[in-house]
């Protein structure tokens, strides 16, 4: 019976689940500002960028995390933003 139930289980092992849950938890632990502040900043960033290009607010991802410096001299807190643009050729002038 044991190996049968194993057969039907999802392929993801419990250590994989632990790893991905941890990564998420730690990312939010490392965030330096409160969720409300994050939301405000996010809205302001959207406002400013929308002046220039049409952005996809659904696919938008802005977070504050600890990141390794390029020259490996240490870590800093950094705002990482991924903001998809709807227009295929945005800067036509």
């Amino acid at each position, binding site marked *: 019976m*044991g*190996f049968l139930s194993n057969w039907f289980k999802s392929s993801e092992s419990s*250590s994989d689940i632990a*790893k991905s849950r941890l990564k998420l938890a*730690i990312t939010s*632990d*490392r965030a330096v500002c409160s969720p409300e502040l994050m939301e405000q900043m996010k809205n302001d960033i959207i406002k400013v960028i929308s002046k220039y290009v049409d952005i996809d607010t659904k696919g938008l991802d802005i977070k504050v995390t600890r990141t390794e410096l390029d020259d490996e001299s240490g870590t800093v807190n950094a705002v990482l933003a991924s903001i998809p643009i709807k227009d295929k050729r945005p800067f036509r002038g």
Partner: protein
Amino acid sequence: MGEVIVITSGKGGVGKTTSTANIGTGMAMMGKKVALIDTDIGLRNLDVVMGLENRIVYNLVDVVENNCRIKQALIKDKRYPNLYLLPSAQTKDKTAVTPEQMKKLTSELRNEFDYILLDCPAGIEQGFKNAIAGADRALVVTTPEVSAVRDADRIIGLLEANDINKTHLIVNRLRADMVKEGNMMSSDDVVEILAIDLIGIVPDDEHIVISANNGEPLAGSDCQAGQAYMNISKRILGENVPYLDLEVTKTFFQRFASIFKR
């Protein structure tokens, strides 16, 4: 000038005290003069793990309050004459010592010892701040469990914020069989998440319990945990030691049984 190393973890019960006792013993076995300081005021543990609980006269609080000289409070180890313990106070509360007093104490001990190991209490409050105050470097102990790893990440952030930039990771209580089955994060997984350098992997070993029962650290002994701790001590002293092969070799019967245990 001696080096001051804090052993910390955030979460309790992951093996800080055991690691402090064994790494210190390992260093002493290699001829270094070592002082172990139990900084967990109110909950002293390192003395029983070292088997020195019956020899305590003065403690850490007595030293910082100038009730005695440092030398009077330091207890010589049973087996290694170059290993000493400064026990914590059992009765006082954790506000009895300040970070400034800890800095002063460790700076005085630097002249006498090659290494000063500080066994840090769990948590991130006063006791943690005291323990890291005088430290040059840190060893962060974790087990491959979500709660312990998450707390370790918090601790690493706090160490950085306090300008302790030489921080290494010890993954404790690893079970190679569970890692192999995909039911425990590997040391590589933990290193990937925490993004700091590894200095040791200690397997889950019942000899650790026995050694604590007897009050005799097992660094250097024949078992896997004893070897793992000795290797950590050597790495701290700058030796390049390869990691142990923790692969468990199952007997035919165990393999057969494990098929049915699923």
